[in-house]
C-alpha cells in the first residue's frame, strides 16, 4: 500500500502562483531559484514517503514504552529521525548563522504539511525542537545560544516545551514549578528547578543525543500570576555529560499520536539557566508560541491532505451500487460514481487544498514581516499574522479533524476497522484542536485580543485582501459576505468597547472569518488555475466552485450567529447548562 504521496503539484501551484511572488522580493532569498526549491521539496518528499510514512501505522500500534525513566519510541523512529537530522531538515528554515539552511519560514510549513500527513506522531519531535530553537534564539543569552543553538538547529539535540502542570493548563498563571538560584557558571546565573510538568511531548525519547527542555517556572520572590513566570533552559544531560535531575515519571496512554511520547516530567532539583528576563517568561514563550500555533495549524493541513488522499483512492476502487437513479441492474460501479460520495470527496479536497493555501499564505507573511525592505509592509504583514494565527490554529485543525472523519465516512464500515488505516487519522487529528492553546482559547484570543490590537485595525488587513480577490462566477456573493464580515466585526468591537463579554460567540465568528479568508484564497486559485495542466486546472476550478457553492452560505450563517447579542443566547448562566 502506498502510505502517502506528497502532493508536490498542488504545493508548487500554491507556492508559485499564490504566495511565491511575495518571497521573491525579500533580500535574504534573492538567490533562491525555482529549481533549488524544487529539488529541496522533491528530496523532502522522498525522505518522508520512503522513511517516515511507512512507520505511521506500526508506530500507532506499538506506541512508546517507558522502562524506568527511559522512553523507547516505536521501532524505526530513531533511524528515521537520524535520516531527518542527517539531511539537515531540522534547520530548514532556521538561520544559516546557527547552522540552519536559511530557507524562508514558509518552507517549514511545506515540510510540516508532508510530515504531519505521513506521520503526525513523528512530526511532533521536530516541531517542538523548532519551537525551542526559536525561544532560545530570540531570548537566550549569548552564552546559552553558543552552547545549545547549533545542536538544536541541527536536531542532534531535541527540544521540548514544558508549560502544562496538573493544575495549570489553559491558565498558566497557576504554574507552581519553582526555580531557586544556584550559583553561576559560564552560561550565566544557574537555578535548581523543582516541580511536575505533565503532557510534555518528547519529554523523554531515544531519538536525540540530548534533550533541551524549555521550562516555565517561578523564582522565589516572583509576583503571583502570569507576571511572575520565568523561562528556563534545562538540559537532560549537563555540559559535562552528567545526568541532570529531570526524569520521565510516567507516560500517558492516549487516543492518538501513539508514536509521540507524552510524558510526566519530574524536575527534581534539576539545574537550569534563565532564558531572557526574569518574570517575563510567558511573554518570551508567546513570541514563539505564535509560530507553534501556526505549525499546529499546518499539522491539521497535513492530516486533511492524508485523509483526502486515502478517501479518493478508496472511492475509485470500492465497488458498490449501480449508476444513476433507482437503477437496479447493470454493472456495479466504484462509489465515486455516486453524487453523495462525490460531495464528500470534494469537501475533502477543498478542505485540504484550502487549508494549504491559507497556511502557506500566512506563513509567507511571516517572512514578509521579518524581511521586507519597507517598514510599513512589514508592519502590515505582522498584523496580518497576528490576526490569522488563531484562525489558522483553530480553523485548520478543525478542517483536519473534519476531513479525517469524512475519510472514515467515505470508507463506510471499513473505515472503522483498524487495518484500513483511516481511523488512525481521526484519532491523531483531535489532539491538534487541543494543544498549543485549545481551539476555544484561540477563538477567545481572536475576539478578545486581536480585535482590539492596533486600535482594532487588524481585521481590515484581511478584509482588504479579500476585497482584491476576483469575485467572479461562483464567487459573485463574495463582496456581500465581506460587507457582512465588516459589519459583524464592528459590532463585536463596539460590544468589547462597552465592556460586554462576547466570548460566548467567539467561535462562530472565527468560523465565519476562516471561511471568508478561505474564500479569498479560492477566488484567487480559480483565477490562477489555468497555469496547471488541463485536467488539474479543471479539477481546481471544480473545487473552487464547490467551495463557493457550499461554504459561502456557511460563512454567512456563522456571521449571522456571531452578530447576535450574546446576552440573548442563553449563554449567561452556569446554572442553566
Amino acid at each position, binding site marked *: 500500500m502506498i502510505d502517502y504521496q506528497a502532493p508536490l503539484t498542488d504545493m508548487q501551484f500554491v507556492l508559485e502562483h499564490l504566495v511565491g511572488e511575495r518571497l521573491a522580493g525579500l533580500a535574504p532569498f534573492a538567490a533562491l531559484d525555482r529549481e533549488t526549491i524544487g*529539488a529541496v521539496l522533491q528530496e523532502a518528499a522522498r525522505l518522508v514517503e520512503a522513511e517516515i510514512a511507512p512507520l505511521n501505522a506500526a508506530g500507532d500500534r506499538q506506541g512508546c514504552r517507558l522502562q524506568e525513566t527511559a522512553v523507547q519510541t516505536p521501532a524505526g523512529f530513531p533511524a528515521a529521525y537520524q535520516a531527518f537530522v542527517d539531511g539537515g531538515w531540522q*534547520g530548514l528554515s532556521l538561520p544559516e548563522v546557527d547552522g540552519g539552511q536559511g530557507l524562508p519560514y514558509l518552507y517549514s510549513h511545506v515540510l510540516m504539511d508532508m510530515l504531519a500527513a505521513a506521520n503526525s506522531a513523528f512530526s511532533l519531535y521536530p516541531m517542538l525542537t523548532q519551537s525551542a530553537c526559536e525561544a532560545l534564539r530570540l531570548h537566550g543569552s549569548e552564552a546559552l545560544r553558543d552552547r545549545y543553538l547549533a545542536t538544536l538547529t541541527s536536531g542532534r539535540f531535541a527540544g521540548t516545551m514544558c508549560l502544562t502542570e496538573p493544575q495549570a493548563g489553559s491558565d498558566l498563571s497557576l504554574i507552581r514549578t519553582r526555580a531557586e538560584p544556584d550559583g553561576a557558571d559560564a552560561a550565566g546565573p544557574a537555578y535548581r528547578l523543582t516541580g511536575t510538568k505533565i503532557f510534555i511531548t518528547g519529554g523523554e525519547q531515544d531519538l536525540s543525543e540530548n534533550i533541551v527542555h524549555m521550562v516555565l517556572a517561578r523564582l522565589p520572590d516572583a509576583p503571583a500570576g502570569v507576571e511572575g513566570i520565568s523561562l528556563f533552559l534545562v538540559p537532560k544531560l549537563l555540559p559535562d555529560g552528567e545526568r541532570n535531575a529531570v526524569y520521565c515519571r510516567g507516560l500517558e496512554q492516549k487516543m492518538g499520536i501513539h508514536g509521540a511520547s507524552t510524558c510526566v516530567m519530574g524536575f527534581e532539583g534539576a539545574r537550569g539557566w534563565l532564558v531572557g528576563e526574569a518574570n517575563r517568561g510567558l511573554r518570551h514563550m508567546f513570541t514563539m508560541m505564535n509560530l507553534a500555533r501556526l505549525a499546529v495549524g499546518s499539522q491539521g493541513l497535513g492530516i486533511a491532505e492524508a485523509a483526502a488522499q486515502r478517501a479518493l483512492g478508496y472511492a475509485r476502487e470500492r465497488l458498490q451500487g449501480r449508476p444513476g437513479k433507482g437503477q437496479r441492474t447493470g454493472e456495479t460501479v466504484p462509489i465515486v460514481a455516486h453524487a453523495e460520495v462525490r460531495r464528500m470527496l470534494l469537501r475533502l479536497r477543498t478542505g485540504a487544498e484550502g487549508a494549504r493555501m491559507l497556511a502557506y499564505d500566512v506563513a509567507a507573511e511571516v517572512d514578509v514581516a521579518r524581511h521586507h525592505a519597507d517598514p510599513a509592509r512589514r508592519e502590515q504583514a505582522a498584523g496580518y499574522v497576528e490576526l490569522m494565527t488563531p484562525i489558522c490554529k483553530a480553523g485548520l485543525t478543525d478542517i483536519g479533524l473534519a476531513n479525517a472523519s469524512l475519510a472514515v465516512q467515505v470508507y463506510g464500515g471499513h473505515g472503522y476497522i483498524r*487495518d484500513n488505516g483511516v481511523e488512525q487519522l481521526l484519532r491523531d487529528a483531535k489532539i491538534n484542536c487541543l494543544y498549543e492553546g485549545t481551539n476555544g482559547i484561540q477563538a477567545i484570543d481572536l475576539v478578545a485580543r486581536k480585535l482590539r490590537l492596533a486600535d482594532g485595525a487588524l481585521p481590515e488587513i484581511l478584509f482588504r485582501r479579500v476585497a482584491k480577490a476576483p469575485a467572479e462566477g461562483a464567487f459573485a456573493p463574495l463582496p456581500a459576505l465581506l460587507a457582512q464580515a465588516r459589519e459583524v466585526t464592528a459590532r463585536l468591537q463596539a460590544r468589547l468597547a462597552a465592556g460586554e463579554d462576547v466570548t460566548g460567540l467567539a467561535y462562530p465568528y472565527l468560523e465565519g472569518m476562516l471561511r471568508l479568508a478561505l474564500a479569498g484564497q479560492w477566488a484567487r486559485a480559480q483565477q490562477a488555475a489555468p497555469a496547471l495542466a488541463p485536467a488539474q486546472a479543471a479539477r481546481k476550478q471544480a473545487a473552487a466552485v464547490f467551495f463557493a457553492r457550499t461554504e459561502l452560505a456557511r460563512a454567512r450563517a456563522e456571521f449571522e450567529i456571531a452578530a447576535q447579542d450574546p446576552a440573548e443566547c442563553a449563554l449567561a448562566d452556569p446554572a442553566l447548562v
Partner: protein
Amino acid sequence: MHIVVCIKQVPDSSQIRVHPVTNTIMRQGVPAVVNPYDLFSLEEALRLKDRVGGRVTVLCMGPPQAEMALRKAISFGADHAILVTDRAFAGSDTLATSFALASAVRQIGRDMAVDLVFCGKQTIDGDTAQVGPGIAKRLDLQLLTYVSQIDAVDPERREIVVRRRAEGGVQVLKTRLPCLITMLEGSNELRFATQAGIFRAARYPVQRWDSKAAGIEDPSRVGLKGSPTVVRKVFAPTPNTQRADLISCESGTPEDLAATLLAKLTTRNPELAALLGRAGMQETGR
C-alpha cells in the same frame, strides 16, 4: 580512485502518453528525470568512493536542460559534473552516443586517470542497453554488465571482484581496472540527498563541453551523420502469444503459492501493490 558515471536525462516514463494516432511518444510537458537505472550506478559509485576514497565525475550528453540531471547527481554527493552538449550531437543513435561519450571519458581522464566507468543497465526511453558496451569497446575497458554487487575493489593491485547476474545463476568475476560496469536495477538503494548537498548542487558550475572540448575531431562520427540507425516505423506490437508463468515455491501450500503469485504480480506492476493493499484489506472488516 576516479569513477565516471554516465547518466542520461529521460522523460519520466510514468507520465508519458503515446499519441493514439501517430503512435509517437508525446514528450510535451513530461517532466525530465535521471534515467532510473543510472541511479543504481551512481549509488554504487558513491559507495565505492565512501569505501576507498577518490572522485566521482558524472557525465551526461544531452541538451542544455540536461544540466538538471547532473545537478541531481551532485546533490547526492558526486564531485564533478560535465555536460557534453552541442547541436552537432542532435539525432545521435547509440553508435554516435557511445562514440561521443567515450571521447568525453578520454578527456576526463586527462585530468585524473579514470579507473572505473559506470553506466546504467539500459535507459527507460531508448532501452537498447548498447551505450555502456559501446563505450567499453571504444576505450578498451573490461566490461561487466548486470552487476548486482561489488565484493571487493583494490585500487593498488588494480583489481575488482563483482557478482554478475547470469542466466541460471550468479557469476563471481575478478577483473583488472580500468573497467566499465553496468549495474543491475534493485542492487542498492539510492541515498537521500542532504540539504547541504542540494545547495551545493544548486551553486555548482556544471562544465559544458562542446564537441571539440569533448575531444571529437571528426564531426561526421556524431549526430545524424554519425548515426546509421534509421527509424522506419514506430508501432505498438500486438502480442501474438499469451505468456504463462509456472508458479512454484518450496512448500507448495496454497498460502505460499498465493503469496508467490501476489509477489510476482506486484513486482511486475508496482501500482497493483497499492490496489491490492486496499482490496486485500476489505476482507478483514464487514
